């Protein structure tokens, strides 16, 4: 009961929600870039939402399934195919034994996720399966998945046998989890500076620069003329923190961010916008908007309830399906 990597590509790692509780030691959480996609992929299969998944970018690796299994793909759409037949995202899919999964083109998004029913059998490091490449821990061996790697599943799928690939008759409506505007809240240094300077985002188009990665996205755009870039005494930074270095090219901290930093923190992207932002195609324009912390909390809670409803609906469909067979 396992999956093999038969062709590897850089940027393919095992990730979960991240490794929390050790930031005071400088151990950064890592974790998936698109948390919603990971949750959706797991919900579709009836997994715990926090089950580890494989994250990959395009060009994507080629996967091989040794035995019958259910999988789901979410996040970016890289045109998945099995035997030249297209496989949709955000649907549970039955994969028969000895099947190869290819990805053909970048249709949408930056980070794709593959979940398997029952999850992967892995060793944790400090309570998380997320790959921490800097220290070489977590995931399968602390690094990008390599050609020849085999990852076992927790449980064997025996209830359902079918000869061909089969797309199951339920899907996740992901509209509630993504938005085109990227919302932000104020951060320590944006409150300290004067009011006018906090409007750097107003009527501005932003794009993500190509030298962006899992550590941080660099932005072009923004009116920073009046924004103070004085460095601060090192203090905590988090996922979504927008730092403004003296060169006035903002850096948004992503999944592999450091735990502390010395650049001015001018805003924080809302957690409810992290997924949209992580999947924002490089060099294509988007807008940002500053909202109050109360509005940000409301958006967070709404998405949290949407996710619970999705999970319940999927659980129901899984029960029906397996009762029917």
């Amino acid at each position, binding site marked *: 009961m396992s999956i093999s990597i038969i062709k590897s590509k850089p940027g393919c790692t095992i990730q979960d929600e991240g490794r*929390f*509780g*050790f*930031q*005071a*030691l*400088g*151990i*950064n959480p890592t974790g998936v870039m698109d948390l919603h996609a990971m949750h959706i992929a797991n919900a579709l299969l009836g997994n715990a939402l926090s089950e580890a998944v494989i994250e990959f970018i395009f060009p994507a690796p080629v996967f091989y399934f040794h035995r019958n299994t259910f999988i789901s793909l979410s996040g970016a759409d890289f045109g998945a195919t099995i035997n030249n037949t297209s496989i949709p995202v955000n649907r549970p899919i039955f994969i028969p034994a000895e099947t190869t999964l290819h990805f053909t083109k970048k249709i949408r998004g930056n980070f794709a996720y593959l979940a398997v029913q029952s999850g992967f059998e892995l060793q944790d*490091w*400090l309570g998380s399966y997320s790959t921490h490449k*800097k*220290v*070489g*821990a977590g995931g399968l061996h602390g690094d990008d998945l390599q050609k020849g790697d085999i990852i076992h599943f927790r449980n064997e799928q025996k209830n359902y046998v079918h000869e061909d690939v089969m797309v199951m008759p339920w899907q996740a409506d992901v509209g509630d989890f993504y938005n085109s505007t990227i919302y932000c*809240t*104020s*951060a*320590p240094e944006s*409150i300290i500076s004067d009011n006018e300077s906090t409007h750097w985002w107003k009527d501005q188009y932003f794009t993500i620069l190509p030298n962006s990665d899992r550590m941080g996205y660099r932005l072009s755009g923004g009116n920073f003329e009046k924004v103070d870039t004085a460095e601060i*005494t*090192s*203090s*905590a*930074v*988090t*996922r*979504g*923190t927008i730092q403004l270095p003296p060169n006035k090219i903002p850096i948004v901290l992503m999944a592999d961010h*450091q*735990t*502390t*930093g010395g650049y001015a*923190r001018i805003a*924080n*992207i*809302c*957690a*409810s916008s992290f997924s949209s932002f992580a999947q924002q195609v490089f060099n294509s324009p988007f807008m940002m908007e500053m909202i109050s*912390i*109360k509005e*940000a*909390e*409301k958006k*967070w*809670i709404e998405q*949290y309830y949407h996710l619970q409803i999705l999970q319940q609906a999927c659980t129901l469909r899984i029960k029906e399906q397996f009762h029917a067979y």
Partner: protein
Amino acid sequence: MVQIYTLGEQAVVLQLGSGVSMEVHERVMAYTRAIQTANFPWVIELVPAYNSVTVYYSIPTILQIAKTDDLAAWVTDNLLGISVDFSNNKQANKKIIEIPACYDPALGVDMLFVSEELKLGIDKIIEIHSNRLYTVYMLGFLPGFPYMGSVDERIQHPRKKNPSKQILAGSIGIAGAQTGIYPLQSPGGWQIIARTPLAIFDLEKENPCLLAAGDQVRFVPISLERFYEIEKENQA
């Protein structure tokens, strides 16, 4: 005076002063202990820094226990409501960790440069750097990297204009009033004046980091021979 700022919708920063000083550090550690002692179920983790403590919290946990639609304000009220005991900061309570340090320029790769820049002999720099108890103000930058202070003014030197691509694990550097130890091989900008054979970060350990904020560190000069001996013992 405590100022509280949000850092995203799942963290608040308690700003406890400005700049870097022992006095502010004591406040940071007192608040860190007080929040730990309060044992709030919604606190995920705390990150003490030079003059702030950042508190990460769980929204789902708060939703379970509080009737509020103003979470950051609720968190702020709870954090400001705790009693902080500033009396536990006595020097005697602090953990002192001795770290063997080989200042030989073969390992302290920037020692000759720093010595020339400061117009101080290597022996004098070793004497000044090792003749002091440093406080770990915070960890950050890399897993287990301690930001320690304060370095004697006579040997303060700014960080490199062009960071080195590769600094070896165990390298001890100085940057302005700070001194630190690279736990892993990494690019970095501090001036490297020594190296320790001790593992500052060890994956195999339950607590992988040798140092924590609030610890005290003393560097004990060792010879090149002794460095290799300890390194060999550690590998065995």
